[in-house]
């Protein structure tokens, strides 16, 4: 089963972290990346640029139109993700608890299953 582990970040919370805390987060991601590569569960992981640099394309009078800024004005944004292929939902949640962000109040990991192109007879 494939899951996207979505890292929700609050830039204010991130800015308030000490250098030590930031280094610990970096090291934690490094460890997790190593573990996932060894177990054969890793598909991809990316960190995303700050939402202030985003462009959003939305319909204006039915025409796709680009506007500067993120899609929703919110305190939390998607800071990055892990795409993993795991045995079951429990394992996906276990991996999310290993993401260092999960230890910091104000940040959170959302575990969402990826849809697939196969179906059982009904």
């Amino acid at each position, binding site marked *: 089963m494939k899951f996207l582990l979505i890292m929700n970040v609050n830039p204010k919370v991130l800015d308030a972290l000490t250098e030590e805390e930031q280094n610990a987060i970096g090291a934690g991601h490094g460890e997790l990346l190593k573990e996932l590569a060894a177990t*054969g569960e*890793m*598909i991809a992981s990316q960190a995303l640029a700050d939402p202030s640099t985003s462009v959003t394309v939305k319909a204006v009078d039915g025409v796709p139109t680009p506007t500067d800024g993120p899609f929703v004005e919110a305190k939390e944004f998607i800071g990055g993700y892990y795409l993993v292929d795991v*045995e079951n939902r429990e394992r996906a949640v276990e991996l999310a608890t290993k993401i260092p962000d999960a230890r910091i109040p104000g940040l959170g990991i959302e575990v969402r299953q*990826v849809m*697939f*192109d*196969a*179906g059982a007879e009904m």
Partner: protein
Amino acid sequence: MNGVEDALRTAAPRVLGALTRRYGDFAACEDAVQEALLEASRAWGAGGPPDNPNGWVYRVAARRMVDRIRGDEARRRREETAASRELPVEAPEHDDTVTLLFLCCHPALTPASQIALTLRAVGGLSTAEIANAFLVPEATMGPRISRAKAKLVGARFAEPPAEERPQRLRTVLRVLYLIFNEGYTASAGRRLQRRDLAVEAIRLTRTLRDALGDDGEATGLLSLMLLTEARSAAREAADGALIPLDEQDRSLWDRELIAEGTRLVENAMLTSELGPYQLQAAIAALHVEPGDAADTDWEQIAVLYRILNRLDPAPVVTLNRAVAIGMSQGPQAGLDLLRQLEKPLARHHRFHAVRGFLLDRAGRSDAARDAFRTAARLTASLPERRYLRRRADSL
């Protein structure tokens, strides 16, 4: 499968078995066989397989093993042993497929690893092919297989002791069934490589069953696969939409597979101890009996599900029984049975789909529509979601 591929897949477990018996190191032997299969597919490509394909692959794989041993020894600055110099020439006659299946489905491995290793070591598929079939990058599948092999270091290359055998055989059958399902539920048009998994699972189960002789559950599983595969051409519309059993064009069903599957399960139930796969196969056989969907013997199906639930209790079995009860005794009887599943299956899309189906038959369209919508939200399968939304919209 063409002639070359056929020969390669047949050679893989035989050569690997013979090599492991001789050199012991399963992980290294497995690598050597993979390299030999690759070399064979290049060499045989145009002209077809040689007269003795097993012998050909064995010689190349054995040479690789000798090279490896020599390399290791050179690194350790040791003299070559006489054993590593001498090249065996005889082709492997003994078929170790069953021993290999037990090893690849070792309880120390996760199901995903058991599946991957079985396809590679017994099925002769390459890591790239397996990765393709499971829609993950090769860089994900490679470590998964290496890790599985590393976990097997020290495991004996022999069939499990008698007291462990029944449990271990159940694991092997489950792995083969999981491989089949991966292929069978794949959308036929766009996922050709995944469809091959269903064919491969049938081939491996057939080999296992032939090797075991008269095992009722191996026969039951083979029968279940054949009876399910028989409907594959009818279960999907040209646009990839799912077609439910009662709406399928029955002229598209494969009558030969149905005949073979039915014969197998009937014999197994007469001659061996009853088991879950035989029961599921018997149910599948009732679904594909001649006649219309309206002629389906739901009463008999409900009885079989009740026995299955006693042998192998699971909420999903009760769920299927609720459909059969609903069809034979009226939708309200089915809905009554569903009530006990509300808690365990609350987040399971199939529960809500069955509820919608029974509510619809009971004439409660609004409640049915809500149930189908809930089911559509809960499934992670795109074709299932499309189908469930369509059902909701039609009410």
